[in-house]
């Protein structure tokens, strides 16, 4: 449904994206994951025909974004970052305008607007001024306008940015419901978001695709770091000695501040063995209290660093 080949965009001397290549199949939800300034918005703006690439190819629904932008625009719904809407219009008026722009007329237009408002649950704010809506509602109006032409492809730039947790859950659910029906690309810099919503993840860093993966693999990658965070009710030195005696434990350090009955430790282990069961056994054997034990997850930044260094290594090898 979407095909991007060696897409590059330069702003004067700054390279925003550099040779981005990927495919999205029909009905798939693809997540763009990357820190701010990674090139997510640039890629989306090119796909939505807002601006051209410096070089490379982008095809949406079988039409080239540069050769036939009008055909692409007809088949596309796009919500830019922070959903810029006309604040002085009422929700109903605004959707009426967008529907007309997208070529709907008369009864078709009215029924489509009603349908989309229902889908995004904004029927109750139809008469309200957009400028007076909460961010969550505004975001939904933004998604509603993108849906009016029944697009084959939906592009959403940071659809959950700046929302409160409840609104985030609602928007995610809304997007997830489209799975299978529409091809969706969404961008985010929140790691768990992609695992909840997306079928596939594209990690972009400094304008390049550094990894393409399923959310499951990504989560496993997150746990790759061999460290366990442990809080025990035990004296520091004795606990350290007991833990170091376990096969596979390399180092035990104090991680944070010790409180009464809570000794936070960071246990680094070998690649090969999962030592959590042995540690639990050792603690119980010594009669100490086990307050907390969890595998240390990598932060998004660490994953990027991890991926980027991996890529650098392969580059050196070639």
């Amino acid at each position, binding site marked *: 449904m979407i095909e991007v080949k060696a897409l590059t965009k330069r702003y004067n001397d700054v390279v925003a994206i550099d040779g981005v290549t990927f495919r999205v199949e029909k009905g798939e939800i693809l997540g763009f994951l990357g820190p701010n300034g990674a090139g997510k918005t640039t890629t989306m703006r090119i796909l939505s*025909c807002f601006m051209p690439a410096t070089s490379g190819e982008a095809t949406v629904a079988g039409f080239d974004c540069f050769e036939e932008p009008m055909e692409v625009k007809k088949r596309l719904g796009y919500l*830019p970052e922070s959903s810029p809407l*006309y604040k002085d*219009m009422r929700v109903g*008026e605004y959707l009426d305008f967008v529907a007309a722009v997208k*070529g709907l007329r008369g009864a078709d237009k009215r029924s489509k607007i009603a349908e989309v408002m229902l889908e995004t649950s904004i029927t109750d704010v139809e008469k309200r001024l957009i400028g007076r809506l909460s961010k969550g509602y505004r975001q939904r109006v933004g998604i509603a306008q993108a849906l009016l032409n029944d697009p084959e492809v939906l592009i959403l730039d940071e659809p959950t940015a700046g929302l409160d947790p409840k609104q985030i859950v609602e928007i995610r659910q809304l997007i997830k419901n489209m799975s299978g029906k529409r091809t969706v690309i969404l961008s985010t810099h929140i790691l768990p978001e992609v695992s909840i919503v997306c079928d596939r993840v594209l990690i972009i860093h400094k304008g390049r695709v550094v990894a393409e993966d399923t959310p499951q693999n990504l989560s496993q990658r997150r746990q790759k770091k061999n460290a366990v965070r442990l809080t025990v009710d035990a004296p520091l030195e004795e606990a350290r000695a007991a833990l170091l005696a376990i096969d596979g434990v390399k180092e035990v350090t104090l991680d944070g501040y010790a409180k009464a009955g809570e000794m936070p430790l960071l246990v680094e282990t070998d690649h090969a063995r999962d030592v959590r069961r042995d540690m639990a056994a050792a603690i119980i054997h010594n009669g100490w209290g086990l307050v907390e034990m969890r595998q240390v997850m990598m932060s998004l930044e660490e994953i990027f660093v991890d991926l980027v260094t991996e890529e650098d290594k392969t580059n050196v090898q070639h």
Partner: protein
Amino acid sequence: MSNIRPVYTRELRSYLLTPIAYLVGLIFLLVSGVFFLMIVLEYSRYSFEIIRAGSRLHGEGLTVAENILRPTLSIMSFLALFMLPMLTMKSFSEEKKSGTIEMLFTYPLTDVDIVMGKFLASATVYLVILGLTLFYQAQMALFKPPPLREIFAGYLGLAMLGGFFLSVGVFVSSLTENQIVAGAWTFGTNILFWLCGWVAGDAQSIPGRVLRYLSVFEHFENFTAGVVDSRDVVYFASLTALFLFLTLRTLESRRWRS
């Protein structure tokens, strides 16, 4: 298929919802109304004097067209020069600033749809204001048969003059995201076009003739005299088209500036 209408309707609605159009209309009507009143009072005082003096001229040479309509038209052309930049200064600037332009450009609309929708909406507001000023001339019709030909020529001139100012405004607005800057530049450009004939004076040199040809003032003068000259019509129409075309090029430039 042309898709100007939804853009036009939205722009017009936006004019009705924000105070700018009302403010421009109010000032335009108020100032032109006050001047019209003064012109009429002066006219009647002068005609009284002529009658009282028992002049043989008997008010000859005093006509509604020449002594009431014409100065009123001049005042209104000045008002257009000052007020119209306010109508167009937001047309692209505001959308650039708020980011709504990004959505507009990704809808299935051509640049022509967008530019013409915006231009025609501002022109509609202006024409409505102009239409309201016809009320002054209608009042005069109570006393004397109205000089219909001159009124038609004069208002056609005002409409074309306004169309030109608005096209300049739309163009300048497409260059900046700051409304005040857009307004100021539009006003400056309009004044340049207005005054360039005065700079030239009577010079018969080629630059002098070019400057006089470019002058808005020279071409508008003919309309106020009740003369619809195809050269003046062509002048306004082509300049308006030129600035709308330049706007299209500006919008297009985002596609090749990479």
